[in-house]
Every structure is written in C-alpha cells, then in structure tokens.
C-alpha cells in the first residue's frame, strides 16, 4: 500500500527509485515532525486520516483532477538545457515538500500526486507544457518556472485557463497576476535593504553597477540607481553584458579606474564563473572590501560553479542562505540532504520553491476547497511559521512579506549571515518613484 502511495501518477517520475518506499515514508514522517507545528493545518484539518476527507464534490466544483483520495499538481521546470543546472534545486525542493505534506496527511485528506513536465530551457515549450498541465491533466496548481522569460511565456496560459502558478525566483517585479503567487522576492525587497546596509555599515559613497543584459538586471539596477542617487550618493558606471558573456577584463579595468566603493553585480548564469575569476585575477581581492562587492544574483548554487575561493569576501543580499541559524532551517537542510544527497547545496530560490507547496496547502485548507478562485481569495494573509527562512506571509499583491539578509561569502562556498532586516520587508512590485 505504501508502495502505491509514494508513486506519482502516470507519465511522471518515480520520486527516488533506489529506496524502498516504506523506509522513505518513515524517514519523511520523522522529518515532518519538525514541521508538524503548522498552525493552520492543525486547526483546519480535523483529522490526518485520509478516510475522513471532505466530499470531492464539495472541494472541487471546477473539474480539477481531484479524487476522493488524491489531488494532482504539476511541476514545470527545465530539467534539460542550459537552465537545468539552476532549476534542478527547485524541482528537488518541490518534491521534498510534496513528500512531507503527503506524509503529514496530504491536503484536505488527499494525497498529492505530481505530473512533472520539462520546459527544456525553451520558452515556447514552457507555454506548451503549461497548457498541457492545465487542459489535459487539470492540475490543481503548478509549481514551476525560473527565468522571467519562461514566466512571461506561461502567464497568458495561466490567466486564460485560470490556473495557479507558484513562482520561486527573485525577479524584477512590475507584475502582479491573479494567477501567480510569487514566493521569491521582487526587486525592491532585495535591493533597498542591501544598499542601505552598505551605506550605513560600510560607509559606501560610490557604486559601479554591472549586470547581464536582460530585464531583471536592468530593472534591478534602475531601482538601485534611483535609491543610490536619492541619498545623494553617486553611480560611477553602469554596464551590461549579453547572457553567457565571458570577457570581463575591459569592465574590470574601468572599475579599477573609477575606484568605486561598491561593485554592485547582477551577473547571472555561467558568466558568473568568468566574472569572479577575472576579478580575482585582476587583483581585486574582495576580502579587502576595497572595493566591496555586493551581489543579488549569486546563491550557494552559483558558488558551486564559481568556486568559493574565487568569491570569498563578497556580500549577497537575499532572503535565504543555507547557513541560516534557526530550527526550521536545520530540519529543512537535513531533510533535503537526506533525500537528495549530502553534497547538495541549497540556495535562495530552492528554499522559495519549497515554500510554494506549503503555501498552496495552507491556502487550500483555509479555503476548504481546491477551486482556483477560492484558493486565490484565501491566499492573502496566509502565513507560514515553519518556513526555513523563518516566517513569511502572503501580501494582497501575491508576493511574500519576507526579511532580507546580507550574507558574507566564505571560501567553503557558504554564506555567513551578517545582517538581517529587523522587520519583514513589504513586497512592492510597482515601486513609486523608482520607475
């Protein structure tokens, strides 16, 4: 019986075929104890037994794939192509969350089954697969997408067929769809706290902005520039490079010439490896903090490619670091490594992907229904005290209230958390005065 329980639906992958199912279930139950404090689940779910679930006709009035004992969801990430290296962590986190939720009794007494589709790092494929998940599989929710381009490609599909997407990546903002819950930070949350910190703590006066050439770095730097100039400080340079660019010597020379206090870097993907190696080779030792480097695009996942020794001393502003010291996070990191291997690292987006399934579960249980419209209505105000990053709450604008932290990169590839905002940062996808 347990065997069938841990197997997802047709056309999808087995969770992890190398382990006997019963053992895995026991393990997960153990892991779930740490999460058992979920207050909403405890108060709203009368019993954890599958048998006492509410009637399907009552919780599903719109023809979603919900049966008396199961509910189907979709996972839509690139597991092939250039983005696979970034998105794999999200897939793993989502599968972990689904397993834990199932081990704790499922959602409204129903076991979650997932249908996994491959976006193949190709935006039209994302759109095709999103349509397939919503139209053919009739999934109750989708956890997926990573790049802004893939989100923009699936957005009209989700709005047309009224689906629900939990999107994990920190991104540029300027968007607020009724069919998306953004579990990563939007640009202002990441940027403002980071810049305020270097100005206050490090006395920074001049900044050099650098980024990969697409919408997220450009929008983020626009916000950063406004915020810097508002305080009477100066931006001494701003440069963009195509995705995949590997020759940063000219900009590094410009940086040396302009002598900024802070290099503000939003370089993404494979370019990061070249950028940090060349910075080091050019004699800019980030541990000297002269100039200091502040990034919003390098998580622990990227450091694996860059090499900890090449980025040691840099600062990153985001909401989650693997080294966060709290009970939720310790349990999360342990469970993640148990499921996917000890050599795994967990970055900001991976943690945000993990939140998606839990936030959905909480919203469904608050709504008492899987219907998309009711879940949407129930979502604002949903809070998660069990989140590895601490505590999050869904804002009316579908983004999360969350704290921003500053991490200091160490040679072993981890960040040491040196600062966190005292209060939750309000998500503000359409910041006035920053556009």
């Amino acid at each position, binding site marked *: 019986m347990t065997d069938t329980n841990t197997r997802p639906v047709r056309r*999808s992958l087995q969770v992890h075929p190398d382990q006997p199912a019963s053992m895995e279930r026991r393990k997960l139950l153990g892991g779930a104890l740490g999460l058992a404090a979920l207050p909403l689940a405890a108060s709203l779910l009368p019993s954890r037994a599958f048998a006492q679930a509410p009637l399907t006709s009552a919780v599903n009035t719109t023809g979603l794939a919900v049966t008396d004992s199961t509910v189907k969801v979709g996972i839509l990430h690139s597991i*092939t192509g250039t983005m696979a290296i970034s998105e794999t962590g999200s897939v793993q986190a989502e599968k972990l969350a689904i397993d834990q939720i199932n081990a704790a009794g499922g959602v409204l007494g129903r076991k979650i089954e997932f249908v996994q*589709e491959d976006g193949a790092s190709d935006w039209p494929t994302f759109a095709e697969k999103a349509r397939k998940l919503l139209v053919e599989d009739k999934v109750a929710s989708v956890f997926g997408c990573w790049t802004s381009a893939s989100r*923009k490609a699936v957005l009209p599909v989700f709005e047309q067929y009224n689906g629900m997407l939990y999107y994990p990546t920190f991104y540029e903002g300027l968007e607020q769809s009724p069919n998306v819950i953004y579990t990563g930070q939007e640009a202002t949350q990441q940027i403002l706290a980071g810049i305020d910190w270097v100005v206050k703590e490090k006395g920074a006066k001049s900044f050099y902005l650098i980024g990969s050439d697409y919408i997220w770095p450009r929008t983020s730097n626009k916000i950063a520039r406004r915020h810097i100039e508002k305080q009477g400080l100066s931006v001494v340079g701003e440069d963009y490079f195509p995705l995949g660019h590997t020759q940063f010597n000219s900009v590094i020379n410009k940086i040396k010439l302009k002598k900024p206090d802070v290099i503000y870097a939003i370089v993404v993907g494979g370019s990061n490896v070249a950028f940090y190696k060349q910075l080091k080779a050019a004699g800019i030792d980030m541990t000297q903090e002269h100039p200091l480097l502040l990034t919003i695009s390098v998580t622990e996942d990227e450091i694996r490619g860059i090499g900890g020794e090449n980025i040691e001393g840099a600062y990153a502003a985001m909401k989650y670091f693997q080294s966060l010291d709290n009970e939720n996070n310790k349990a999360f990191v342990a469970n993640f490594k148990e499921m996917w291997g000890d050599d795994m690292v967990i970055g900001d987006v991976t943690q945000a992907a993990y939140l998606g399934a839990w936030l959905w579960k909480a919203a469904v249980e608050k709504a008492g229904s899987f219907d998309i419209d009711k879940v949407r209505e129930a979502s604002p105000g949903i809070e998660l005290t069990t989140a590895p990053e601490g505590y999050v709450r869904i804002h009316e604008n579908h983004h999360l209230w969350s704290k921003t932290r500053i991490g200091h990169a160490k040679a072993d590839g981890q960040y040491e958390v040196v600062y966190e905002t005292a209060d939750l940062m309000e998500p503000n996808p359409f910041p006035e005065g920053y556009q």
Partner: protein
Amino acid sequence: MARILNMDRTQLLGFVLLAALVFLVLPLALDAFRLNMVGKYLTYAFVAVGLVLCWGYGGILSLGQGVFFGLGGYCMAMFLKLEASTPEATAIQSTPGIPDFMDWNQVTALPWFWEPFHNLAFTLFAVIAVPVAFAFIIGVAMFKRRVGGVYFAIITQAVAAILSILIIGQQGYTGGVNGITDLRTLLGWDIRTDSARTILYFVNGGLLFVCLFIAAWIKSTKFGRILVAMRGREDRVRFSGYDVSAFKIFVFCVAAGMAAVGGAMFTLQVGFMSPTFVGIVPSIEMVIFCAVGGRLSILGAVYGTLLVNWGKTTFSETFPELWLFAMGAVFIGVVLAFPNGLAGLWTDHVAPRLPRRLGGRPRPEAAQPAPAE
C-alpha cells in the same frame, strides 16, 4: 490541377492522403489542445517544404531558415502586440499605449519602425516582404560572388546568430530574451479560444497546401529541372548560358517566404514569438525535420516535421528526464537506416507493392542514391 502540376497518380494520391490526414483525420481524432499542437508543428512544415526546394532540389543548404521564420513571426507579433497595448489595457505603465516590455526598458515613445504595424494590411505584406527582402540581400551578396556549399551554410548560421543576438540585445524594441508575449486578439477576434485555434488550424493547413502546390509546381517546371541540374553540375548549367546565381537567389527567396508564412502562423496559434526561433539550434532542427522526411520529397517534409515533433512531445511527456536521448537515438537510427528519410521508405518499400492503377511502379524514380552534399 493535377495536369497543371504535371503530377502522376502516385503524387496525386500522396496529396490526397495528406489532405485527408490534415483536414479530416487529425481534427476528428484530436481534442482542441492537441490539434493546436499539431497546428504548431505544421508551421515548422512550411520551413521544411522550403528547405526541400532550396536544399533537396537546389543543393543550397541553409542553416539559417529560423531567421525567416522568426522575421515573419515577429512582424505578426508586432501587429498583435500593438493591438493588445491599448492605452486602457496598459494604464498602469509609466507610458500607457506602448507595449509593456518597452515601458520596462524605459522606452517612452513607440519607435518609428513599429508605427506601420498598426495596420493589418501592411503587416501581412511585411510578413512576406521583410524576410524575402532579407533573403534577397543575403542571396545577392553570396550567390553573385559564387559562395556556395559549406561556406554558404556557415554564413547562414552566422546570420542566425547575429540576428538572435541583435534581438536579445535590443530588448527595449524587441522584447529581448522574453520575446513578444501576451498576444490576445486579431482585429478584436480573441485568438486564444479553442474555436479560434481550430479555425487558425484550418487556415494554417490551407496555407500549407498552397505552399505545397507552389513547391510541386516549381518542381514540375523547367525551372525545377534547372535546379536539379545546378545541384548536380553547376558549371555545366552556367556554361549552357544560364545565370545560376539568379536561380539560386530566387529559390532561396521562395524558401524564405514560405518559412515566414510559417512563422506568422506560429505567432497566431501559439500566442507569442521569442528569439529562440531565430537562433542556430532551431534552424538546424528544421533541417532535421526535412532530412527525416526525405529532402527530395515535398510531402515527406510535412510527415517528417509531424513525426519528429510528435516524438518530441510524446517522449518528453513520458520520460521528462531522458527524452533528449530518445530523440538523439531516433535521429541516428533514421539517418543510418533510411538515408532518404520517410519518403525513401515509401518509394523503396511501399510504392512498388501498390497496384499499378494507384500509381504503383516497379522502379521508383527517387530510389537512386541522393547526391552527396
């Protein structure tokens, strides 16, 4: 019709079978979602049919057909995007009335080259004219200088790379990596509904047959024979007094025009256009569709496109983590086992067994080995 195109019974039968498949069997057998997907595959078939003319008959291997597919698609997308960007719909932007991605990139006025795309008639003209003009320029620059063979393939590939970098780099004017997304209506007609998608599928199928007939007609004329002669012995054709470059430019432009129509239909059916179609990888993929179908067969190109894409979708839905290996195995298998593609399979094994009155022949004409490229 058959007489105009100089078709024999086998060819006519092939057209009838394909028409039955596209207009009867698939629409009856598939739901709206799958039919729309087949419609998307068929837009690639426009490119593959163009490649049969240009590569299979003319011997000009272009690895940059995605450029023309993309240009056609972008022209259509620009019109649809402008229609979707009314001042009311974009009221939250700093500059209402311009496409959303321009606003995100601090562009505050509609660029001049977007203006004409408010007009549908101009757009339909541009869908064909822009890619064909571009193909003409490339053709004149290359063929007049007698650049051919592998060099031409490399240059087309470079053009594909340049254009995709250009589109990605100029994101304020083109939408960058994201492409042009969230297209909704065509002259007020919502193209996202199932019924609209079904209608577009038939329009797409109709246009594909127009292209197929054009291709069959070109093949049957003296021009078609000159093309084959050029592929075999370019020098001899030139010494016989023909201007080889003019023929090459013409067939390259025809292939570009067909690809452009496919691109425009893609935009209409899928609802967005992205620079991923302009680059090198999709351009090469389109050559693969053509090769799998059989590069000497106009109809084979359509079947090849359908088969490869159907395989891609099925494999990737069934084995999301292994599907690329399965596709690779299929390509290698097809090339090793059937060098003339699906069409070769038909002419070598199926057609000889057909009764004579259906056009069966003991010795099929396309059975001789394909000339080496």
